[in-house]
């Protein structure tokens, strides 16, 4: 990171958001797809709507595009109320999950399609399309039809077509879902580059948490028509506000018990009879009572002998080892039957691995590594 000012308009109270959802509700018949919801998205943000299928993230996006109208509440884009404005009159473009490339038109004509609907001259259109082709490295494919190019190229055509009209807001519906893993990872960085170059506001819908974490400036985690948490990727990962978010993003260990707030500000959780209560950072709004302790596997240290410098230590037996190449995850069974996962980086060769199945080991973590969240 350079010394550039951190991009965080959401922390600046003087900044006006580009998009504002105010008490927006969407119902389909008896089914409520979106519960009353408020959300602000700022200019130049790369905003991710993340959630399992059916959580309402696509509905939210379709309301921005204008394909669905909210049942209640207002959506404003750039200060303008969007009620009653059809999709073709909005400065919003969408990249469809299926790409929706016109099969009867060449790559060039697909990209020019939106431009031809405006009042641009032929020369201006040609220049703009060529810019877009260069931006997405498609120069060589301009004359091909969609069925003559690969999946990754189709994805780039769809992106170029949606960006051609220089929209205020670009919506991306699972843009990388159809690509294989390796290509997807490369494309994520390409997408970030293009977003930065064009300075367009991007809203991406995805169910892939890794994708959301990689590309987004902020992530909104959704569940059942509600936004559970909106925050930057590190904050979502390190300080989830609920066990749902903790569980949805990445791998997590959960221990249930009764919490108490300690004098030093930390929380302790009595999780098993006769065991020393474990300590962790108190989650937002924790009052004590029924709670869950949440800790990421990579923050759990696994040792053969009891570590002396840590207060959170539990003993267990190795149940399973998942070898992932760069990492190994140990599944350790505690005396009470709970299973905790501990992850270590494989800095050394496998032949010199320290632990094997059925080994008695100690798991430990620092006082602030885990979170205690109200249930």
């Amino acid at each position: 990171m350079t010394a550039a000012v951190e991009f965080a308009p959401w922390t600046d109270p003087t900044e006006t958001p580009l998009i504002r959802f105010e008490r927006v509700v969407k119902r389909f018949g008896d089914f409520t797809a979106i519960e009353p919801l408020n959300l602000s998205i700022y200019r130049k943000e790369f905003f991710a709507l993340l959630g399992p299928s059916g959580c309402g993230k696509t509905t939210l996006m379709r309301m921005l595009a204008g394909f669905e109208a909210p049942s209640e509440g207002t959506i404003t884009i750039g200060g303008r109320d969007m009620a009653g404005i059809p999709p073709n009159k909005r400065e919003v473009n969408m990249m469809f999950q299926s790409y929706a490339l016109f099969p009867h038109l060449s790559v060039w004509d697909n990209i020019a399609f939106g431009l031809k609907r405006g009042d641009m001259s032929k020369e201006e259109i040609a220049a703009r399309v060529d810019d877009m082709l260069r931006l997405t490295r498609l120069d060589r494919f301009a004359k091909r039809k969609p069925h003559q190019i690969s999946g990754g190229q189709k994805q780039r055509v769809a992106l170029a077509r949606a960006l051609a009209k220089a929209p205020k807001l670009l919506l991306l519906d699972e843009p990388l879902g159809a690509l294989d893993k390796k290509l997807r990872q490369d494309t994520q960085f390409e997408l970030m580059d293009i977003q930065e170059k064009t300075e367009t506001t991007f809203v991406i819908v995805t169910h892939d948490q890794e994708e959301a974490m990689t590309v987004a400036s902020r992530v909104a985690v959704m569940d059942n028509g509600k936004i559970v948490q909106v925050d930057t990727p590190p904050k979502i990962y390190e300080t989830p506000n609920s066990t749902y978010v903790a569980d949805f993003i990445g791998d997590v260990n959960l221990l249930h018990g009764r919490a108490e707030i300690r004098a030093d500000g930390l929380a302790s959780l009595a999780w098993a009879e006769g065991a020393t209560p474990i300590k962790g950072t108190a989650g937002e709004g924790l009052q004590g009572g029924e709670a869950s302790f949440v800790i990421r596997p990579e923050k759990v240290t696994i040792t053969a002998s009891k570590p002396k410098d840590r207060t959170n230590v539990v003993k267990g037996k190795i149940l399973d080892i998942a070898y992932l190449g760069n990492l190994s995850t140990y599944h350790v069974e505690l005396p009470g039957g709970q299973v905790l996962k501990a992850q270590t980086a494989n800095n050394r060769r496998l032949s010199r691995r320290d632990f094997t199945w059925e080994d008695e080991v100690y798991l430990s973590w620092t006082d602030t590594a885990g979170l205690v969240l109200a249930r």
Partner: protein
Amino acid sequence: MNFARRTLIGIPYIWLLLLFLVPFGIIFKISLSDYAVSIPPYTPTLDLAQGWAGLRDFLSQLDFENYIWLSEDDLYWKAYLSSVKIACISTLLTLLVGFPVAYGMAKSAPEWRPMLMMLIILPFWTSFLIRVYAWIGILSNEGFLNQFLLWTGVISDPLQIMNTSTAVYIGIVYTYLPFMILPIYATLERLDGSLLEAAIDLGCSRTKAFWLVTVPLSRAGVIAGCFLVFIPALGEIVIPSLLGGSGTLMIGKVLWEEFFSNRDWPVASAVAIILLLLLVVPIMLFQRNQEKAQEAEG
């Protein structure tokens, strides 16, 4: 290639040979013969008992006289032209009626589609001849249509629809409508709805999106439907005979009269051969359209 494979591939060829090529050869031979008052009503006939001399004698008597006759009598080329005209116009009319129907079917709720499809196919359960006869009951001067219009007071005298080309158009459009609707419906139903949303998202109105996306993408179905209507309509005989009266000149009717009224098999065969040649062109174009459509999908 083993025997089983040869047999399997051979079956359709034998089928085509027996049911298309051999009859075509027979008709072509008759078209080169002369009219005769005998059974069968033409000469020469091949007498195999006379051997090579008989065959040579038989071949020497064949000539293109009937084809020359067809080009000299203007009845025939007028009938061909009129048939092409009627087939073209009725294909266009069928398209104008069929496309909206197919579009409506493709846009209807999925649970309704099998039912609508059934309604399109249902008329085939009744004989084609009976259905054309039924139109006489509707279109004649005392028919349901005229009675209804007289009753509502729209007209004071019955409209003369029967025995005009209007009745022929109505008959052809009615009969061949399913052949237009089904291929168009097939392409429209497969049309990805997100393509239309993408067009609207990029600034099209709904009408513009229809012309720029729906119409070009249903082209293969429209072309297929047009051929499926045009080809049989060109040689149509029952509809012009029953509904068109004596005023409508169509080649199918001429053919019928040559065969059954004049009993002039040689001339009738010549008419049929020319009709076949006229149809080969659109049939080949139809084949190419189908192949292209398959390529575009693959």
